[in-house]
């Protein structure tokens, strides 16, 4: 593995010994650094494989494709860590800081992979699946039919076009948020903010029309 942007880092003063040792060897020269990078890669690969195998089946990814994704996530995480080593401030253990990179890499790669599936709906609106998604019992449809009709009206009348698009994709069509961010050329934070505002508007509309209570307890 080649050295990337290697500089002499200032090691934060109050580090636990293990974290200090990681910084020392990763910021140092030669064989010691290479060995540390190999060890770090092995640790991150194990985490990537476990996470990919846990999340993959839900996204219909398995076998060699999933293994490749884990290897790529670990490699990219090691690269990011070597580039950003100087940003580690010792607010956590070094390994926790490092593991975060590989977890986020796995999430991002699974989001991108989602669109390789041939059966992904985006434009369709399958509102019939919504009752099951929230656990409404078919036998009690007379109790919740009006509520979901009001929700659908609010989606059409209260939300902006962008909020509606995001709400339909995530809630109605069950598209993962990270995958939608990829499709819309956006990011997780921006899509979440759009959903946050949409949720607030929809709840206000349902409260105003008497379908939900305006308190903190919720309906049991």
């Amino acid at each position, binding site marked *: 593995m080649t050295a990337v942007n290697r500089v002499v880092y200032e090691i934060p003063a109050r580090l636990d010994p293990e974290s200090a040792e990681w910084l020392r060897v990763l910021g140092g020269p030669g064989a010691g650094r290479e060995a540390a990078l190999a060890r770090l890669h092995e640790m991150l690969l194990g985490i990537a494989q476990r996470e990919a195998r846990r999340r993959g089946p839900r996204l219909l990814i398995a076998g060699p494709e999933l293994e490749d994704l884990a290897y790529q996530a670990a490699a990219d995480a090691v690269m990011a860590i070597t580039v950003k080593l100087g940003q580690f401030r010792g607010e*956590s253990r070094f390994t926790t800081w490092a*593991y975060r990179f590989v977890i986020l890499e796995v999430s991002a790669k699974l989001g991108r992979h989602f669109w390789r599936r041939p059966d992904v709906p985006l434009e369709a609106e399958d509102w019939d699946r919504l009752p099951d998604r929230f656990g409404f019992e078919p036998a009690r449809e007379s109790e919740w039919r009006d509520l979901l009709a009001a929700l659908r009206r609010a989606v059409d009348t209260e939300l902006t076009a962008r909020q509606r698009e995001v709400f339909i994709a995530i809630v109605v069509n069950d598209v993962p948020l*990270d995958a939608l961010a990829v499709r819309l050329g956006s990011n*997780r934070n921006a899509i*979440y903010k759009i959903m946050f505002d949409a949720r607030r508007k929809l*709840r206000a509309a*349902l409260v105003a029309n008497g379908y*939900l209570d305006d308190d903190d307890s919720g309906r*049991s």
Partner: protein
Amino acid sequence: MNGWSALDRFLRTDPRDVGCAKAMEMLHVYVDLVAVGGDAEERYPGIAAHLRACGPCGEDFEALLAAVRETAD
């Protein structure tokens, strides 16, 4: 939980919610605090609120916590 409460809970928003970017920026700090039994929710209420509401960030939190706990064994 029935459909009414599930929908109600999903639509509720917490004004303390810091959003994905800030939650992920501090995730390693938050996880280390949880891993040692510290009161992360009290110290970082905005991150706690976000992790409760955001599926992807909540999943990343659980994954990082699991990784920390497994490698500590």
